[in-house]
């Protein structure tokens, strides 16, 4: 089957971020003094386990970023026609999850729908019962085998996962030991995750592990797709925040005078508007622009994607002020230090002083603030989507999942699995990010180290 690769705007930005990240990592590796705080991070068990979890999320997100359009079966002549549906490598990998849609709600690991329907049996009698699912547990001849089949699959899957995890651990053990990473917590975490993933994968082959939603989509699939949206909101936003805050912050602190006044004025105005309201106002305006220019978009995916990119842009435009204020303060302090004054009296140009002496010395503030902001942004996405100023309703995200499931709260019996899945995935992602951010802050913030010792 042939296909054509599709690079959406957000994909391009992700690749850009990835390139920046790789370049930064390569640069840091070659400079021992930059590597030192990262070594401290690497010694923290909590940080390394959360990094493991985060990189799994990242892997799912990246797989979901490689987009393509598959070729349709040829119809007219030799010309290949591509499907308007934009798919990703993740979609291909978990294709059964995506295509096995049921009629409507079904509970996790169920074999029947969640509501009774009128069925007619072989004799033509109509009776009300829970109809069997099209795909979930379809291989079972009898519903009574359900419990034993689930148990069997969970155990076998977990065992397989454990084996794979053990192989992985044996292979990576020397590599970890050489770098003096916390071996045992990482090993335990790897095995636990591998077992869980193995069991889930084996179960997901025959059941809907987390149930299905109103239109019968698999909730596990929706959760996996949501990861990319959350990660993009959390990371691409920094592409906007970082340059603005860095340039304006150090310019205000270093040049002072009218430059400082002007920049201070701009960020005071921006930060005096409550952020939700500012975001709401900007997103409403973006909606109008998108609605009145339908000719810009060739597929609905590109339209939803551009809206996501704009949302990141708006979040970035409204959230750079805090970091800018911090950087301005730090630059004000730095410019009075002897080595800067020495550089000035040697006649070093302002630009060179800024790049050689100021920027490297405020890097730790930038890094700490970026990793701390990440989890806040992931959480903000859900809230904004609920308020109605988040991602496009057609884009799968934690916010849209919660929004859709919220209305089912009043149902009897309650449909709880979509909510639980969205909140669960979000909790794991944000918790890992928070723990990692804490370790980064502890390793990079010289002030905090002292107080921790004193305490």
């Amino acid at each position: 089957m042939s296909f054509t690769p599709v690079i959406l705007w957000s994909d391009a930005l992700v690749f850009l971020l990835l390139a920046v990240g790789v370049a930064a990592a390569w640069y840091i590796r070659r400079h021992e003094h930059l590597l030192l705080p990262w070594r401290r991070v690497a010694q923290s068990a909590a940080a390394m386990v959360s990094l493991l979890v985060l990189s799994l999320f990242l892997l799912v997100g990246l797989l979901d970023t490689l987009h393509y359009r598959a070729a349709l079966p040829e119809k007219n002549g030799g010309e290949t026609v591509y499907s308007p549906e934009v798919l990703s490598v993740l979609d291909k990998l978990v294709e059964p999850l995506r295509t096995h849609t049921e009629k409507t709600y079904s509970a996790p690991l169920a074999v029947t729908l969640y509501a009774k329907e009128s069925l007619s049996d072989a004799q033509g009698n109509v009776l009300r019962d829970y109809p069997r699912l099209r795909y979930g547990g379809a291989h079972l001849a009898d519903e009574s085998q359900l419990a034993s089949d689930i148990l069997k699959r969970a155990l076998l899957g977990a065992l397989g996962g454990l084996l794979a995890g053990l192989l992985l651990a044996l292979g990576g053990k020397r590599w970890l030991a050489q770098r003096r990473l916390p071996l045992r917590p990482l090993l335990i975490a790897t095995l636990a995750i591998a077992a869980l993933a193995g069991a889930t994968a084996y179960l997901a082959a025959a059941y809907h592990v987390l149930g299905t939603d109103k239109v019968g989509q698999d909730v596990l699939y929706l959760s996996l797709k949501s990861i990319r949206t959350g990660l993009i909101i959390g990371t691409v936003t920094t592409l906007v925040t970082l340059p603005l805050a860095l340039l304006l912050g150090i310019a205000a602190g270093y040049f002072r005078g009218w430059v400082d006044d002007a920049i201070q004025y701009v960020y005071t105005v921006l930060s005096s508007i409550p952020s939700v309201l500012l975001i709401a106002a900007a997103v409403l305006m973006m909606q109008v622009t998108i609605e009145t220019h339908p000719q810009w978009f060739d597929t609905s995916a590109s339209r939803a994607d551009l809206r996501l990119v704009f949302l990141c842009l708006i979040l970035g435009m409204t959230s750079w002020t805090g970091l800018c204020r911090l950087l301005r303060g730090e630059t004000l302090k730095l410019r009075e230090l002897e080595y800067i004054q020495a550089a000035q009296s040697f006649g070093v140009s302002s630009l060179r002083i800024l790049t050689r002496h100021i920027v490297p010395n405020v890097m730790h503030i930038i890094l700490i603030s970026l990793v701390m902001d990440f989890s806040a942004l992931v959480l903000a996405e859900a809230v904004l989507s609920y308020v109605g100023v988040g991602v496009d309703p057609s884009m799968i995200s934690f916010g849209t999942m919660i929004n859709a499931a919220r209305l089912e709260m009043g149902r009897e019996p309650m449909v709880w699995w979509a909510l639980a899945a969205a909140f669960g995935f979000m909790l794991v992602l944000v918790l890992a990010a928070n723990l990692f951010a804490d370790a980064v802050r502890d390793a990079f913030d010289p002030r905090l180290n002292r107080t921790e010792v004193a305490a």
Partner: protein
Amino acid sequence: MLAYLLRRILYAVPILIGVNLLTFTLFFVVNTPDDMARMQLGIKRVTPEAIEKWKQQHGYDKPLLVNSTASGAGKITDTIFWRKSASMFVFDFGYSDDGRSIGHEIVTRMGPSLAIALPTFLIGLIAYVSFALLMTLFRATALDIAGVALCVLLMSVSGLFYIIGGQFVVSKLWHLVPISGYDGGIGSFKFVVLPIAIGVASGIGSSSRWYRTIFLEEIGKDYVRTARAKGLSELRVLFRHVLKNAMIPILTGVVVVIPLLFMGSLLTESFFGIPGLGSYTIDAINAQDFSVVRAMVFLGSALYIAGLILTDISYTMVDPLVRLS
């Protein structure tokens, strides 16, 4: 003091002008009133006449900045900028799309918003500071570590979860209070108690951890050692010395939000059906009622600036070293 206050209030004016210009640019320059009319009337099959009619109904049928057809002061005042944007400085917010006075809505909806936000704020502050003091008292013990771990866990949970989970457990499973609604006077108690409890609970993670950091920073200082050397008990050191000195960083974060309490909380109010300013804003966003959103943005920033001034005043009350001049 009075001179300082006057100066601060005067300093707020250019910022409000900036906010006003920003919202004006956002709402009228990025998208023209024609775009908005097309959006409101549906994208397809909109006649130019319908757009003109919509603009006339909502008062958008004027030039943006300069009206060359009018004479005298009308050149400036008979424009969209003057009518829709500059008028907000005298708190004239105009009318919403359904024809009601926005100013009147704001005044009537402030009460319910405050009924939720003020108790949440006060109870929350006391709870967070107490929890943080407790962790500081037992610092570097298992209790402290468990407390911090709990805080990190609580702050990793989405705010929506607290509301949805709280509503489900308290209202649906236990039937203790109604799920949503509001009533004036004393009858409102059963409606507000759950939103307040949820509001307090959802902030406990990040706030307590933040206060704990502040307290720990203070407790490493020399005056604390002196106080201990004098033979004061640990509790006395904590309450008489550390708490007092930690007031400045705490006030910085706390006082600034007091005026914003009027605005209420978007999420809480919309989930619990409280007819306050928060749910008003959400309804306006969903209905794409731009004039209401514009008014809320302006009101919000005015209140925020008031909060900044209040913060400065509060410094003089807790710190004898700070003199405003």
